[in-house]
């Protein structure tokens, strides 16, 4: 085969692009993957921003990395290790805390301390959510059928979906219907009375959305959290060794072993279209690569509005993509520390440092944080989800030193007046002073800090709008709506052009499912 001639070209070496490329190479295809940056990983990436301190810069935990991908690509052999992240502690304003541990009895005791009623509800709630997650889980690995189509493939898909729905009990169906339409605050009010418990649980319903805990639809996002729990021993949630960059490195290593050519510093200009079908890719440096299959693992806006001229795509499709909501709502503050932050609620080094620490004292706290974001401000009292990666993986920081990853919501992409250095600094300062209320020594421990706004996510990771899921997990942007009606099966209106990243079904997170399903679609089409 001539140089620059391939069976398939993958745009974007994020984890989904790497997964797709690996599956195509595994099927015997000659594959090249093109990455704009000098390193692979996209938003699943680890960098040494300060010497010796390694930040898992954007995404920071793994929850739903598909077991079949781990097996098929032999990721453990390529260095994937998923380390336990056993607890969540919510420090409270009165100096107490609410903990959830990896032992059922300990958690029960802990919740009981705050509310005996909630302690009982907690068990039942967990069971109900896990069952709902189990019921909805098969949909993750399913190609969404088009309900408007009469093609045999879609009809078969609808039939399968129908059969599947019929296999659920009436109760389960109602529960799921309620979950996808309800707000997480409403759902939690049905179960619990202790506000910090509701606040902490509701936080998982807003991550990556531009919604508050009282917005309808957030209960569904909350459900995603329970999907990992039903894998039992297989459990793929936790902290990846070397951060989420470690996941990308393992997939990249597997990809290379399968013969994938990885080109970094290779930003794509346009998808080449010949005779109405994709024929290759033109790089920004003028190089042209040829292939009958082009797969974009970039976000939907870049994939359809930037890489391809509008004339090659139907107007209604372009309109749908333009209307796809990608409002970034969260930021990150990554901190290098010379000592552990000492939390007033649990002084000294302890188990809390090995798990998540959540600043989510109540539903109102988070809803108020959202109020500010609605009107173009970052939250003055934000929701923060912290982990200390160096306590889980000692290779993340020099001995005795630490790194801390703080996920912060809300930080709107469209901030009033636009993001600039002063606003970024103010945002970082807000986060530090919020943590300081619970860990007063934090400021003295800081040796370096990286503040990431949605604008920075867009600039560095190349995700339009800086939305961590490449598009919010809204009901009207899920399943057969993702990224556009009639085009949720990883194919696009441009023959030969495929789409497989977080903007496709089943969505974001270090999951790999869109990449794999897109590769499946290509291979099914005989690509």
């Amino acid at each position: 085969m001539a140089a620059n001639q391939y069976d398939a070209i993958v745009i974007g070496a994020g984890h989904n692009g790497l997964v797709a490329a690996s599956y195509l190479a595994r099927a015997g295809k000659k594959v090249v993957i093109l990455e704009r940056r000098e390193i692979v990983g996209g938003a699943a990436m680890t960098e040494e921003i300060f010497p010796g301190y390694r930040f898992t810069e954007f995404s920071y935990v793994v929850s739903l990395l598909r077991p079949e991908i781990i097996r098929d690509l032999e990721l453990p052999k390529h260095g994937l290790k998923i380390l336990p992240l056993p607890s969540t502690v919510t420090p409270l304003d009165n100096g107490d805390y609410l903990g959830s541990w990896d032992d059922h009895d300990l958690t029960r005791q802990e919740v009981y301390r705050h509310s005996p009623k909630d302690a009982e509800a907690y068990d039942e709630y967990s069971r109900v959510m896990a069952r709902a997650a189990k019921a909805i889980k098969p949909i993750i690995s399913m190609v969404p059928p088009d309900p408007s189509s009469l093609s045999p493939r879609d009809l078969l898909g609808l039939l399968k979906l129908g059969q599947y729905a019929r296999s659920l009990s009436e109760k389960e169906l109602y529960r799921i219907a309620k979950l996808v339409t309800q707000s997480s605050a409403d759902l939690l009010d049905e179960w619990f009375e202790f506000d910090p418990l509701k606040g902490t649980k509701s936080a998982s319903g807003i991550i990556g959305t531009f919604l508050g805990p009282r917005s309808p639809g957030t209960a569904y996002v909350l459900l995603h959290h329970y999907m990992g729990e039903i894998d039992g021993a297989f459990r793929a949630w936790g902290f990846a060794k070397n951060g989420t960059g470690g996941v990308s490195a393992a997939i990249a290593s597997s990809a290379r072993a399968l013969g994938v050519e990885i080109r970094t510093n290779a930003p794509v200009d346009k998808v080449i279209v010949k005779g109405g079908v994709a024929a290759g890719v033109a790089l920004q440096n003028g190089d042209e690569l040829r292939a009958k299959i082009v797969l974009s693992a970039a976000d939907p806006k870049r994939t359809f509005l930037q890489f391809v001229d509008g004339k090659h795509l139907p107007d209604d499709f372009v309109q749908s993509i333009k209307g796809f909501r990608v409002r970034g709502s969260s930021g990150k503050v990554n901190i290098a520390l010379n000592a552990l932050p000492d939390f007033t609620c649990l002084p000294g080094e302890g188990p809390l440092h090995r798990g998540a620490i959540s600043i989510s004292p109540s539903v109102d706290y988070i809803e108020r944080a959202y109020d500010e974001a609605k009107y173009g401000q970052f939250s003055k009292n934000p929701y923060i989800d912290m982990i200390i990666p160096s306590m889980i993986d000692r290779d993340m920081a020099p001995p005795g030193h630490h790194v801390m990853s703080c996920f912060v919501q809300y930080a709107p992409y469209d901030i009033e007046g636009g993001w600039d250095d002063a606003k970024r600094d103010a945002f970082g300062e807000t986060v530090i002073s919020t943590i300081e209320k619970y860990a007063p020594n934090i400021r003295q421990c800081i040796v370096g800090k990286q503040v990431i706004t949605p604008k920075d996510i867009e600039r560095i990771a190349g995700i339009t709008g800086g939305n961590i899921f490449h598009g919010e997990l809204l009901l009207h942007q899920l399943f057969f709506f993702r990224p556009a009606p009639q085009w949720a099966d990883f194919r696009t209106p441009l023959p030969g052009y495929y789409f497989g990243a977080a903007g496709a079904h089943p969505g974001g997170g270090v999951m790999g499912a869109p990449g794999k399903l897109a590769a499946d679609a290509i291979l099914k089409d005989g690509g």
Partner: protein
Amino acid sequence: MFDLKRTPFHERTSKLSLPQNWRRWAGYIVAGSYDLVLDREYWAIRDAAALIDITPLMKYIIEGPDAAKLLHRMTPRDVLKMAVGQVFYTGWCDDDGKMLDDGTISRLSDTKFRLTSAEPSLRWLAMNAVGMDVTISEVTDQVAALSLQGPKSRTILNKVCAKSLDKLKFFRLTETKLAGVPVTISRTGYTGDLGYEIWMPADKALTLWDALIEAGRDYGIVPCGILAMDMARVEAGLFMIDVDYTATSHAWIAGQKSTPFEMGLGWTVALDKPGYFVGRRALEREYKEGSAWRLVGLEIEWEGLEKLYASVGLPPQIPGMAIRASLPVMHNGKQIGYASTSTWSPVLKKYIALAHLQRPHFEPGTRVAMEVTVEHHRLHAPATVVKTPFYEPEWKRK
């Protein structure tokens, strides 16, 4: 008087073990685990450093001009060729070539060895030493032992060790001082990772425990019980006496006994070594004729397992610890062996087992099926015979 023995580390370990799940080991009690779930201890072995109390191992000092001769005669390894500072792992047999026990031999000097074993061995040593110029003493209670296992173990030891361990090779030992206490450190272990075993005077046990915990603080050191170690040793393809084979002295019938070849220890049987050793004739015969059984690794196929569980609407239910239960292994519907230990491997994300299979089914790549109980029904999950170790990080021998 009615207490089981406690190791010299008990004062620390008993305060640290949250579940207080004491396990019996050679007349001692040791912690099963320190945490309520095994994750942290297991991952310390595979990603940081795990500190394990291995004091209950039986320990013997064999000293005298004929010390090498005795061990050369008692075990199938060529002990005469052993260098001072070298450690051998070996099984040893009765005259029928059936395994009595297994352990390590450390050559401390030309005329001094330490033998570890699982079973009391004084009598067997004495029987084999007839007419030899050798003294045999048991030092189990006088010598406390800690195993420090995991990729960070060397870094931690170097912080408190009088000399660097960077040059200490796999299965070698050195005499040195740790926190001022004279110790022997061998680069050995039961986890298949980088690791060391530290042999120390029992009265200094707590000093050294504290020194190691302190030195390891910034490197993720975790006290680790034998339950997490049990998972790691299966991943390393290492078997356990009276779980994966029956000591000949405990067997009621011939079928319960195993030979070194059957246990995959062919590499320890030095048939080319000079002179007689216990079991020689039987082992020579078996070598020529081939073994009827072999202990092999099994990888259970997850998709197959998923299918079995899906039939009752469940995801696979695999306990997160090693299971010491005999599970029939089938080939074309006929039982051809049994798994003796099975475990979920968190690092490999695979369900694995050590299994005794009959010839010709023990060749790597052979597809068999292992029994799994799905909702009270005994079904069979597809599995493949694989070479052990299942997991061997590059740093184990480096």
